[in-house]
């Protein structure tokens, strides 16, 4: 078993772009064919490396948006206007192009059906929903009966990532709150994630859920603090902050 326990050395490999499509107002979904992909757990990320002709390299981490039941590895990339990497990925990459990446990476911010039977509460701000799309997909594909809830804060309808997946996710409870503008016929909650919204739309602490929070640093810190105030155990809360500019809500 010692042999199985040792991971393959993490090395850079080439992926081929299967498609690069508009996902939401500010994001694209990259579908990648990675020939030597070892599979991954929902919540893991990968590193992308771009190399300029002069040898200068820039590297970024992206959460994987798909579960390993899917044939390809999918990323959702938010286009940061002053970004060094994301505008290339969203605007320039075409089907058939090659992209250098390594992964999967990370074992802490993951959920998979064999972890335990505790209910799961996912809380996302903006593009923080991406790793949760993989968890929800795995939850459905694996037939898990663990109760899974997602509370997702997006600015408005056009900013919702994974909209079609979330609309059809009937094995999980999905609540989307629109923090800035909502259409007149919007059925879900409006406004930012605050104490009242969490109390109303998240799994109660008595159910001892695992809590995953992902989003911009300020969102994650405020939300984690509120969950502790509501009675959740600090050790049951896992967080993933990302430093991207342009907050979630």
């Amino acid at each position, binding site marked *: 078993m010692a042999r199985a*326990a*040792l991971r393959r050395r993490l090395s850079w490999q080439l992926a081929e772009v299967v498609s690069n499509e508009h996902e939401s107002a500010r994001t694209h979904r990259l579908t990648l064919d990675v020939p030597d992909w070892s599979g991954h757990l929902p919540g893991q990320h990968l590193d992308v490396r771009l190399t300029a002709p002069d040898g200068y390299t820039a590297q970024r981490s992206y959460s994987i948006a798909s579960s390993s039941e899917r044939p390809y590895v999918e990323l959702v990339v938010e286009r940061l206007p002053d970004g060094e990497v994301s505008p290339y990925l969203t605007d320039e990459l075409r089907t058939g192009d090659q992209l250098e990446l390594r992964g999967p990476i990370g074992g*802490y911010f993951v959920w998979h059906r064999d972890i335990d039977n505790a209910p799961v509460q996912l809380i996302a701000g903006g593009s923080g929903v991406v790793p949760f799309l993989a968890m929800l997909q795995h939850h459905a594909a694996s037939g898990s009966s663990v109760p899974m809830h997602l509370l997702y804060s997006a600015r408005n309808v056009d900013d919702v990532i994974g909209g079609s997946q979330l609309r059809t996710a009937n094995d999980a409870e999905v609540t989307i709150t629109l923090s800035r503008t909502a259409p007149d016929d919007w059925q879900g909650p409006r406004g930012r994630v605050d104490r009242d919204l969490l109390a109303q739309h998240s799994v109660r602490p008595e159910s001892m859920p695992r809590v995953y929070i992902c989003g911009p640093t300020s969102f994650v810190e405020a939300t984690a603090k509120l969950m502790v105030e509501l009675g959740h155990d600090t050790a049951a809360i896992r967080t993933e902050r990302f430093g991207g500019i342009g907050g979630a809500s």
Partner: protein
Amino acid sequence: MTDRTLDGNAAAGPLAELFAIELTTIQSTCASCGRAAPLGAHLLYADAPALVLRCPSCSAVVLRYSTARERLRLDISGVAFLEGSPSGTS
């Protein structure tokens, strides 16, 4: 860009350059305060000259790692003890 404070999970890629097991799921006991937490739950200062992990309880520097200028540097003097599963599951 402002300096980013992230979660230790974001250090998983760089640390995988050096370690054969997934380090972010490993419980690290802080040499300063004695509290233990998974390295993935530590605070990561991502834009310091080195990658810096700090203790989530007392903020002491636990680990510094850098591969700048083709030199590998690792300082784990802030770690008293590491414990976890070699398969990297948490």
